[in-house]
């Protein structure tokens, strides 16, 4: 693994520095370090994957991603990209592969969408809002949707998100702006109908 100058490392969040250390230990076949890294990132990995594929497929994606981290840890190079971005890039690629191979239908089931704003039960209203939001997000192009998922739901920084999606910061900001603008229009339409 290539070492970064101390000045670069100092400006990194502590969690990222810890991830670097864990990856180095994983490269030496340390299963305890692997378990620690996996526990640290598994919630985000699962959450992200479940937004694209079914729950059982999401578990498969996470398993495959972590296995790749284990196998490739020795080859991972610190080139200014955080380990979290690297891991999420693997998850993202596997989700896209799964979607392409299975032609997963992104449309939610019809019965789930039968909800009315006039329904008194708050829980049901909440479900309706969730379904409307899911539908609105699914209406976005995949790249815009992924950019929003990573920044809003998984609080990844702009640099991390750009690394996951393999785009420049400017391109990421463009994806996010267009995505949010489109989402705003859809939510507005849903409110009117």
């Amino acid at each position, binding site marked *: 693994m290539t070492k970064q100058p101390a000045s670069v490392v100092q400006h990194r969040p502590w969690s990222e520095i810890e991830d670097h250390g864990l990856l180095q230990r994983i490269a030496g076949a340390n299963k305890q370090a692997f378990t620690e890294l*996996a526990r640290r990132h598994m*919630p985000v990995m699962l*959450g992200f994957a479940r937004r694209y594929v079914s729950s059982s497929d999401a578990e498969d994606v996470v398993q495959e991603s972590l296995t790749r981290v*284990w*196998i490739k840890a020795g080859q991972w190079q610190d080139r200014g990209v955080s380990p979290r971005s690297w891991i999420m890039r693997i998850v993202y690629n596997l989700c896209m592969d799964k979607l392409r191979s299975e032609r997963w239908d992104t449309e939610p089931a019809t019965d789930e969408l039968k909800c009315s704003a006039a329904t008194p039960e708050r829980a049901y209203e909440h479900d309706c809002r969730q379904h409307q939001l899911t539908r609105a997000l699914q209406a976005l192009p995949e790249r815009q949707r992924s950019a929003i998922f990573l920044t*809003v739901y998984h609080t990844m920084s702009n640099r991390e998100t750009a690394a996951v999606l393999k785009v420049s910061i400017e391109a990421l900001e463009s994806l996010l*702006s267009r995505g949010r603008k489109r989402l705003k229009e859809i939510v507005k339409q849903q409110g009117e109908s």
Partner: protein
Amino acid sequence: MMTTSTQQSVSIERVETLIEAYGSNTRCWPEEERDAAMTLLAETPALQQRYKEAQQLDTVLLAGQLEEQPDDALLARIVDKLPPQQVAGVTVKQQERWQWWPTSIAAGFAVMAIVFMVMNAPQQGIENEQLALQEMDYWLWEEVTDQASVDSSEELPADFMSML
């Protein structure tokens, strides 16, 4: 245009872009522009309006936040099924095999030496014993018969066995 000593300067247009792209959660804004952008936001009503609109959308979005916990059972399954690691095309298992290679050879030689010694030891012992007996025979024969030149292979005197 606002400038701070450690931060990049930002324009109103840039803050608009930040709000449109990253929304109302200022923690998502680029770190190097955040402080200057927030200062400008606090001073500009037009930006505050854009910020409020972004907040409304974020409220809708955050309703879809999923709480995820580490799945210990899944993690245990993953750890159980971990394959050998790869370093430049060579698996760790293969590496370990190569690391053990000199030790294995040394151990092999040691085992061969021990086997050789064990296989030869009883025979040598028997030979030594026979030699000792021969010497004893000779000495006894000398002692008893007082004939130094007698071949040990010659027949022993009849009373020899009773002397042992």
